[in-house]
């Protein structure tokens, strides 16, 4: 997290800490599902065939403490079928679900987040929070940090990408957040964590995006998997949960 601040215990109780091909994040859905980015399991430009161990930790803001609480074994990994590991410039379908072997007991430091049900969560300028154990200004962190970012205008992000002469795919199943004028962003190690907004109508926190990709950190916009596009797939994978 660039330009953010240290999270207090219970600020982001859905935050998961993953260690697969490096640090990553995730969010708790229900009491036995972890939502994360597919590329934390199948990184781009990586020859690994998904046989790395998947370690998932929950329930604390300290890396040391969260690991002391123990790894949560995974029963099943589900990668979205649109995800293409071999296309380094295409993060379409960058979403995955991890089913835990055992349900977790919820408490103040461990609670699930909700899923979006309409497009208003993606209105331009809507402020959201991104949290993670990823790097901050070239430093690795030992505590969970977060940053508050606005949902950016799609056209601005497209124009920004064109200005960078990049051919990265920015599809309708993604959205961008941040601002080139701000020194705030998510960064490496935050992937898989969620972009969370508070719904003032229901007073609930809703995960609207998954930290997916960006060009550098804090030099423009960050790109997120748009969860509203994948709610049906998530529900299908989770079944009656």
């Amino acid at each position, binding site marked *: 997290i660039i330009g953010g601040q240290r999270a207090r215990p219970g600020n982001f109780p859905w935050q998961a800490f993953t260690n697969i091909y490096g640090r990553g994040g995730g969010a708790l859905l229900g009491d036995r599902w972890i939502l994360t980015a597919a590329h934390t399991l199948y990184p781009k430009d990586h020859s690994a065939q998904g046989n790395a161990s998947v370690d998932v930790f929950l329930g604390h803001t300290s890396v040391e403490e969260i690991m002391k609480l123990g790894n949560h074994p995974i029963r099943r990994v589900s990668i979205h079928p649109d995800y293409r590991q071999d296309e380094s410039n295409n993060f379409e379908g960058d979403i995955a679900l991890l089913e835990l072997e055992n349900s977790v007991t919820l408490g103040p430091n461990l*609670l699930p987040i909700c899923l979006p049900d309409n497009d208003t969560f993606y209105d331009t300028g809507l402020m959201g929070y991104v949290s993670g154990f990823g790097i901050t200004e070239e430093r690795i962190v030992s505590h969970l940090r977060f940053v508050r970012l606005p949902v950016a205008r799609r056209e601005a992000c497209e124009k920004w990408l064109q200005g960078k002469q990049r051919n990265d795919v920015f599809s309708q199943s993604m959205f961008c957040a941040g601002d080139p004028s701000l020194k705030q962003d998510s960064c490496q190690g935050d992937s898989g964590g969620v972009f969370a907004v508070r719904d003032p109508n*229901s007073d609930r*926190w809703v995960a609207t995006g998954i930290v997916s990709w960006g060009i550098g950190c804090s030099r423009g916009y960050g790109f997120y998997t748009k969860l509203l596009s994948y709610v049906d797939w998530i529900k299908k994978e989770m079944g009656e949960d």
Partner: protein
Amino acid sequence: SIHIPQKLFGEVTSPLYPKPYPNNFETTTVVTVPQGYRVKLIFWQFDLEPSEGCFYDYVKISADKKNLGRFCGQLGSPLGNPPGKKEFLSQGNKMLLTFHTDFSNEENGTVMFYKGFLAYYQAVDLDECATQLNSVEEAAQPLCRHLCHNYVGGYFCSCRPGYELQADGHSCQASCGSELYTEPSGYISSLEYPRPYPSDLRCNYSIRVERGLTLHLKFLEPFEIDDHQQVHCPYDQLQIYASGKSIGEFCGTQRPPDLDSSGNAIDLLFFTDESGDSRGWKLHYTTEIIKCPQPKTLDEFTMIRDLQPKYQFRDYFIASCKQGYELMEGKQVLTSFTAVCQDDGTWHRAMPRCRIKDCGQPRSLPNGYFHYTTTRGVHTYQARIQYYCHEPYYKMLTRAESSELERGTYTCTAQGIWKNEQEGEKLPRCLPVCGKPVHPVESKQR
């Protein structure tokens, strides 16, 4: 003589019938039917020369060495002695018809023609026993010593109880070694009672009635068995055993007391010596069905279905419990209970007890807990608990029309199962609550 082959029925006619019979003729027809039958004969046609005393032409009938009549003339005519519709009956199985004609049939110089006769005979059963009665009257030897039974074509003899038919088929000899009485009531007496009993008897009278019946004996007057003033029953004696146990030996003129055996088996042994002239004994036995004590419950929760005022052998009662209680026989739980009244007047099973149903410790609710809304720790019939979810992290899943309070209420039912009114045994579900951090991120600095 003409012997007609033995048949059960047939006809006898005069020669040349229905043409005029010949003169100067005499023949005797012998009608025979099987043994055990009599011969009955009747004339259907009769047309013979009439004469005073049937001197010229006649038919003579005889049977059993007796002459049954001499007949002539015509049916319906006053002349001669026609037989009319008279039936002739033999005592034995044979009847003889003698037909006689003289040298001519003239009347006032005119030759007359007579057709003769047509008689029909049939075999009718001979009641040999009736014959025996007649024979007794006539002081002849009876066919049967005791009892005679007629049947069509014959008879047979039998003897009174205590006697046995001998090989000759009509004699009876005292034989009372194994007399069995199985009717629920009846009379038993010494042979020939109230006339003197025979000598040298070894009689055994067994009464065996159905299980569940008790036998009662009552001796009738006169009671008279040869006795001696100083020695107990030295000559003749009556021994009584109830269910194999001796009740006593009796003789003299004092009849035994009425006896309640409380069993379904009595044996009477009657021994006589070679002499004596006592009249013997007679008893009337009756039975009464055994009764069981009135069933009584051991607690206020036991119920007896259709309680009867009396219970006797083979009757039964069904016990059950009030709602919420279960039948216990010792430490064993019963699904039903039936007790049957036995032949000794006892119930085949002891009365059960009823124990209140216990639903056991309520199941723990994942991510939830429960409280007793009735007495804490008591989980018997009608106990009630309330399940809750660990809020605010979990919330109970309910149907649209139901509240968490309703969904979480469980009662210990009469079946011994915790049940919710709407969902039955199924436990409620505590679902995770999403998006409600207890300590959400806040920014104070502006």
